[in-house]
């Protein structure tokens, strides 16, 4: 069964079309990278898959619905004095959206939370105040938070942003391990393909209402990207890295679901 399925999907705000005619099937265990410049609709695609944003036309299906989706946001500085431990963050991923106090099944809950923390190797600091942990430690806990609900789909929204190389590798390997062991489909929004290039099965590249889906080789070449950007773009392979020259596609960006929902 397909994990994510989009048929003739169109999203527009007034006259501005983010994408149109998007057909996409993501299979269980597949790793799909979503690339594109700012404002090309990457975060909007994520909001559609989370059920927060209706399509202008077309259909979207996510196997298991919203509750089967694990979401990993980008790392950002947390308030140092925040009264929250890694254990609490992970627990919210399990039942934070349910009403009530959650006084029943505490033992079972604790076992699942402990297992998720252990699976990302965060047991040692799971009881520390989360604001005092490093960015890499916080992102490991984010992975655990997404995994604890046993997702069929993981949506990763720039999860490696502002991490150093070693931690980028740790976090992306944790995500890779999960999709290999449990067949979880991964949709990975990023502006930097290279850190995850060895893991990527297919790329969805969005530019100004146009898009292309295919393997990294099919999409990440001078001809395809020049067509997408409608301007000459040079794609160079240096060792096992892909460098895109002339697209202006690599700006840093920060965005948050909550702030976009509020505005």
């Amino acid at each position, binding site marked *: 069964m397909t994990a994510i399925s989009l048929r003739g999907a169109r999203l527009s705000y007034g006259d501005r079309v983010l994408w149109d005619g998007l057909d996409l099937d993501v299979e269980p265990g597949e790793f799909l990278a979503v690339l594109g410049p700012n404002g090309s609709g990457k975060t909007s695609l994520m909001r559609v898959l989370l059920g*927060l944003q209706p399509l202008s036309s077309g259909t979207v299906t996510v196997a298991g619905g919203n509750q089967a989706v694990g979401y990993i946001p980008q790392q950002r500085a947390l308030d140092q004095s*925040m*009264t929250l431990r890694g254990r609490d963050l992970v627990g*919210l991923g399990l039942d*934070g*959206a349910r009403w*009530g106090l959650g006084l029943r099944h505490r033992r079972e809950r604790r076992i699942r939370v402990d297992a998720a923390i252990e699976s990302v190797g965060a047991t040692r600091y799971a009881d*520390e105040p989360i604001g005092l942990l490093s960015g890499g430690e916080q992102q490991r806990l984010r992975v655990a938070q997404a995994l604890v609900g046993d997702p069929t789909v993981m949506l990763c929204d720039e999860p490696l942003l502002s991490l150093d190389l070693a931690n980028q590798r740790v976090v992306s390997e944790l995500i890779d391990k999960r999709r290999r062991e449990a067949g979880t489909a991964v949709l990975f929004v990023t502006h930097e393909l290279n850190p995850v290039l060895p893991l990527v099965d297919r790329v969805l590249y969005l530019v100004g209402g146009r898009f292309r889906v295919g393997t990294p080789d099919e999409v990440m070449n001078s001809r395809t990207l020049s067509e997408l950007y409608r301007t000459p773009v040079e794609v160079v392979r240096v060792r096992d890295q892909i460098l895109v020259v002339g697209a202006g596609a690599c700006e840093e960006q920060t965005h948050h*679901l909550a702030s976009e*929902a509020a505005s």
Partner: protein
Amino acid sequence: MTIFDLLELDFVQTALIAAAVLGLVAGVLGPFIVTRKMAFAVHGTSELAFTGGAAALLLGIGVGYGALAGSIFAAVLLGVLSRRESDRDSVIGAILAFGLGMGILMLALYKGRAANKFGLLTGQIVGVDSTDLTLLVVSSVAVLAVLAFIYRPLFFASVDPDVAVSRGVPVRGLSIVFAVLVGVATALSVQVVGALLVLALMITPAAAAMRVTASPLRATVLSVVFAEVAAVGGILLSLQPGLPVSALVTAVSFVIYLVCRGVGAVRRAA
């Protein structure tokens, strides 16, 4: 009279029960208020509770109902007007100033006892009668029941809004509901410690608790204990020397806060 004679008095007992109920509600709400950075919103809401109370005094209806109406009005207004966190501060500032001005105007027009006026600002817990106490207990139970129902999603939305949104938590709706809960609790506190000193019960105990633990559950338990000690302890201390209740409630609360800051600093250095 000794303190034991004083404790026999009906109005003292009523005051102590009122303080204990308030300590519980304020202590439970406090950690959410601090996490959501709503200290100033609580202050603004309490000023509007004062305005409502003053209006009620002028119209000759129960001050408690006026305060309740004023602060719920403020809470809803704040929730609707300040969609963005960035302009929440200025919205509160603008509403607060206007509300306080209106309150003072209404007190100036009021021809009754002057003590009633002053009480709205600095508290008059010994003036709480059994009708007030009933309103207080019923409202408190309602606040706690609603809070229990929305507890997990509210906590999620408060500490981790991005992921909460992704899980379908109605973040915006919850923040309005929570603002109303805070409004009700504030209106109740106004009668005990007065509009100007509400922060001593709603913020200080929680801020103190959150200095010494990173566990949300422990922070809530400590926050309730601190709020109870401040509210009930403040009244007990004020009885014998006959000092204003609100002065002692805030003093006790502040001492607890200082001690917790100290403990937190020592632990972090270790």
